[in-house]
């Protein structure tokens, strides 16, 4: 089971290792705390953009209420991810809490795009391992970055493009599975609008609210134009 999981998560490894290291380097160079606090945050908080924001909040000695609001707003897009996984995670037992905890953008992408068999238990065990592998890559990245600090030797500039490439590949796979261009055009258009109208920190959540709104409208139009199946017109 581990080998296919490793293959599937390899693009995440290439993305999370350098990004986690970027956070680790930032953490040790900007703050006075012990290096191991960086991987501890990777284990407990486990949010890419969130942890990078946390460095500036820690540096500013921000109040805890402000910390809560800033982290919640920054990660608000995850509210919508769970909605599309309610069924998939049902009955996952003790694994469910961790599946939910580890639901980053990248893990969500893999879990919703990979082909699945009818064997629920097996697939949920796979989902669990994918989530765990991804977090391991992230925590290792945080630790390496914090330990090495500014002395990172290998010039890995640009390696984080692996995540962009992953999202492109998964978009193509989603299109092939769905056979419908509408959600893809909607997603790209919503992103473009958000990029033009909003500051970087709010673009993702803005775009996801927009997309959910359009899908909601589409749902209502479907319901109104097509008479509900199974109703008896006696």
């Amino acid at each position: 089971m581990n080998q296919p999981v490793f293959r599937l998560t390899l693009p995440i490894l290439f993305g999370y290792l350098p990004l986690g290291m970027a956070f680790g380097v930032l953490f040790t160079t900007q703050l006075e705390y012990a290096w191991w606090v960086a991987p501890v945050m990777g284990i407990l908080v486990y949010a890419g953009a969130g942890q990078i924001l946390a460095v500036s909040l820690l540096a500013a000695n921000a109040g805890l209420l402000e910390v809560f609001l800033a982290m919640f707003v920054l990660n608000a897009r995850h509210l919508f991810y769970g909605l599309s996984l309610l069924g998939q995670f049902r009955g996952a037992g003790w694994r469910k809490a961790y599946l939910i905890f580890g639901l980053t953008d990248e893990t969500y992408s893999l879990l919703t795009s990979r082909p699945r068999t009818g064997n629920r238990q097996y697939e949920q065990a796979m989902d669990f391992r994918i989530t765990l592998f991804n977090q391991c890559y992230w925590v290792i990245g945080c630790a390496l970055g914090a330990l090495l600090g500014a002395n990172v030797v290998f010039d890995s500039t640009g390696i984080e493009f692996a995540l962009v490439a992953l999202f492109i590949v998964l978009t193509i796979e989603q299109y092939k599975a769905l056979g419908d261009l509408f959600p893809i055009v909607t997603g790209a258009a919503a992103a473009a609008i958000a990029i033009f109208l909003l500051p970087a920190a709010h673009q993702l959540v803005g775009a996801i609210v927009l997309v959910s709104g359009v899908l909601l409208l589409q749902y209502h139009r479907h319901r109104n134009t097509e008479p509900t199946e199974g109703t008896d017109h006696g």
Partner: protein
Amino acid sequence: MAESWYLAGFIAVATVATFATRVIPFLFFHRHTEHPLVRHLGRYLPAAVMALLATVFLQRSATWNNALPGLDALLPAILVVTIHLWRRNALLSIASGTIAYMVIVQMNLIQA
């Protein structure tokens, strides 16, 4: 000492806030997995989110203030699409796009 308590409180609050965004849908909608709207979102939202993430992160990896705005990221992105449509091998598509981007950015191939 006060420093350590602040750090511990900070990490606890950041952990709870992040987890809250992920767990709230499961707490409030767990009885509605068969609702047609939830099924509709489950069917279409992932594709829309993927296209959205690809667009936002593609825009962020590109340089827009040079003579050929955005080309440093758009070229590798086109390479990813082409190779993926040709061979449909995710790792191959991702690796070639990433290497192309690293070469372009590190060697500064597309200049102002």
